[in-house]
């Protein structure tokens, strides 16, 4: 067995049984691992109409064949389940060290089934696996849970846990690992909470076998050099982290401000990556095996913690009209402690601010902390209350769509398929708009990061306002990303690598003979099985859309002034390129061709 460990841990929380099963290698061939392979398992085992928070839903935590190998950024894992936020397939991706450690313990995946009647955690020490009482951990924030568990099971164990938000079934709760890394999106933390599983600790002491060590060594050294020589991965990300995008996207006039009411934040400089580096940065951090190290550690007052990332700075910053970077760092910290997705949490607060602006949320609901655009105390207070479901926090914990709906104003939710959009206004970046609308997990930038060609010029510069050719770019990026996620590597490697490079790394690890084309074709297969699941879960063509504001209200100022998102002009061609019918349903012939 090369690359893979060949074992799945299937844990049934109803009868507390623990089974070790052989990995289905036929499926692994077709779906690689991680996101793809776990989705295949999920598709075969779970009714797409299942209620996401019922015990019939399952939660799969999966590594890829390259996780825990010497390939750059091999520390990742993914959480696959049905999302309680979007009702689509969820696959949230996280870095840190936990993913590699699971691999070292001898497993490719964990499948959690059923529901425990009391809080538990799962302790894995190589082949010893136990379900243990977690009464004493329930209610604890993420850092405290991690500290307590490390005392209990050993300092060397890596800890994955939910925070209070996941316990309280917040639809925007994350699964956290290594204290401040997050499988953030789509409410995967609520599914774990619904099963009464607080945490999974893991310690592993053996490495996956590699098919051709010498060949791997050579390709890894070539790839590391490629990463180093690339301006973005070799210099931009290591020096400034992701936050350096603040000024770029703002200069383009595509930096959503005050819940997407405009695309220019006049105080962007105060929350920029440059300011972060100058005033708050303590050190750089990196995930397992990562030569890029884009992570940040920041200090404000007596608080020192991981983050914040670009998306978070934007969400709590411009999108809430807040320019106090210190408070943004604190709000980020509280998201991580509560186990809340920073993108959804911050933008749900922004939606709440618009509801307040419209007079729909009244002062008597606000416990003295007004949800006013620009109120830098509100972002901290309401994040904490959201995590604990206190007061109006109870409604905020449901995400922006359900929050807006409860006031008869779902249009304040800047979301696709009920999942909040990230930090790029598609009115100024057209391809990214198509990528948002067609994302299989709702509003998301990392299913296809069109910012790379449309803004950063990688692998080539595209005109961000042009529509021609964008459907093909979106499809190719979606397919490539699906494969990168499934191999278990970080998407940021793709600034410096192409499909052929991923094949070149996978082959010596697993003894396969992939090419650039077959890597993309595999991504296409993964994309289609996700789509098929979503269709069976009740999603329709009408869900492949953007918030009305982005389609109907032109941006009022800046570098993208007077622009709208021109989705309708791209969507039909996209369906065609996908081999789907006019309603966006995968055709029989396409599925046959891909062997889905």
């Amino acid at each position, binding site marked *: 067995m090369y690359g893979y460990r060949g074992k799945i841990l299937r844990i049934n929380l109803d009868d507390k049984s623990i089974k070790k099963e052989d990995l289905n290698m036929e499926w692994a061939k077709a779906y690689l691992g991680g996101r793809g392979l776990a989705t295949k398992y999920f598709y075969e085992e779970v009714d797409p109409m299942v209620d996401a928070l019922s015990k019939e839903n399952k939660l799969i935590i999966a590594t890829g064949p390259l996780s825990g190998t010497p390939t750059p950024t091999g520390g990742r894992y993914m959480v696959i389940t049905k999302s309680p936020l979007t009702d689509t397939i969820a696959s949230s991706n996280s870095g840190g060290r936990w993913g590699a450690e699971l691999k070292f313990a001898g497993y490719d995946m964990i499948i959690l089934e059923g529901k425990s009647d009391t809080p538990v955690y799962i302790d894995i020490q190589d082949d010893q696996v136990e379900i243990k009482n977690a009464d004493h951990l329930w209610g604890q924030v993420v850092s405290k849970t991690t500290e307590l568990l490390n005392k209990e099971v050993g300092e060397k164990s890596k800890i994955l846990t939910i925070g209070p938000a996941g316990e309280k079934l917040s639809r925007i709760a994350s699964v956290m690992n290594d204290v401040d890394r997050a499988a953030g999106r789509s409410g995967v933390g609520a599914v774990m909470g619904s099963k009464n599983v607080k945490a999974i600790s893991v310690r592993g002491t053996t490495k996956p076998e590699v098919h051709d060590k010498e060949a791997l060594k050579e390709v890894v050294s070539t790839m590391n050099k490629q990463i180093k020589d*690339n*301006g*973005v*991965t070799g*210099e*931009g*990300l290591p*020096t*400034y982290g*992701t936050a*350096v*995008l603040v*000024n*770029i996207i703002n*200069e*383009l*006039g595509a930096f959503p401000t005050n819940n997407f009411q405009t695309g220019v934040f006049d105080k962007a*400089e105060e929350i920029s*990556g*440059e300011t972060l580096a100058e005033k708050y940065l303590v050190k750089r951090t990196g995930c397992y095996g990562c030569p890029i190290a*884009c992570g940040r550690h920041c200090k404000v007052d007596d608080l020192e913690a991981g983050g914040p*990332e*670009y*998306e978070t700075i934007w969400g709590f910053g411009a999108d809430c009209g807040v320019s106090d970077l210190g408070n943004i760092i604190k709000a980020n910290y509280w998201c991580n402690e509560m186990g809340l997705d920073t993108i959804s949490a911050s933008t749900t607060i922004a939606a709440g601010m618009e509801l307040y602006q419209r007079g729909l949320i009244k002062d008597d609901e606000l416990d003295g902390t007004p949800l006013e655009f620009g109120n830098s105390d509100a972002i901290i207070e309401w994040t904490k209350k959201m995590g604990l479901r206190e007061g109006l926090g109870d409604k905020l914990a449901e995400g922006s769509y359900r929050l807006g709906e409860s006031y008869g104003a779902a249009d304040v939710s800047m979301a696709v398929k009920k999942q909040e959009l*990230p*930090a*790029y206004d598609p009115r100024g970046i057209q391809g990214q708009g198509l990528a948002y609308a067609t994302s299989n997990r709702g509003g998301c*930038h990392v299913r296809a*990061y069109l*910012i*790379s060609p449309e*803004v*950063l*010029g*990688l692998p080539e*510069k595209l*005109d*961000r306002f042009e529509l021609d050719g964008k459907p093909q770019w979106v499809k190719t990026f979606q397919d490539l990303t699906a494969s990168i996620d499934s191999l278990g590597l970080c998407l*940021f490697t793709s*600034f410096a690598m192409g499909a052929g490079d991923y094949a070149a790394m996978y082959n010596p690890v697993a003894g396969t003979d992939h090419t650039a084309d077959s890597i993309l074709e595999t991504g296409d297969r993964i994309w289609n099985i996700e789509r098929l699941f979503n269709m069976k879960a009740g999603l329709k063509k009408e869900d492949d859309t953007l918030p009305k504001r982005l389609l109907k209200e032109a941006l009022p100022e*800046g*570098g*993208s002034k007077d622009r709208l998102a021109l989705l309708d002009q791209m969507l039909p061609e996209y369906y065609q390129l996908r081999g789907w019918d006019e309603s966006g349903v995968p055709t029989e012939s396409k599925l046959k061709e891909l062997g889905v």
Partner: protein
Amino acid sequence: MKLTIKLFATLREGRGKILEDEYPADTTPKDILASLKIEEKDVAILLVNGVDGELDKPLNDGDTLSIFPPVGGG
């Protein structure tokens, strides 16, 4: 004519953040890079008033030029 030059990330080192100054008519982004001793290869994004600019196209009075080195990732 009056131009505003905004520099970002590493390009700020030793040059400052925002330069507002008078320039001769027909000044191009290329001229500005040369005057600031910024090599073309170190420029990844060049915007004139928020949209993609061209190195050789003369700027107009009141324009804002934004210059970024290779950076990115969200």
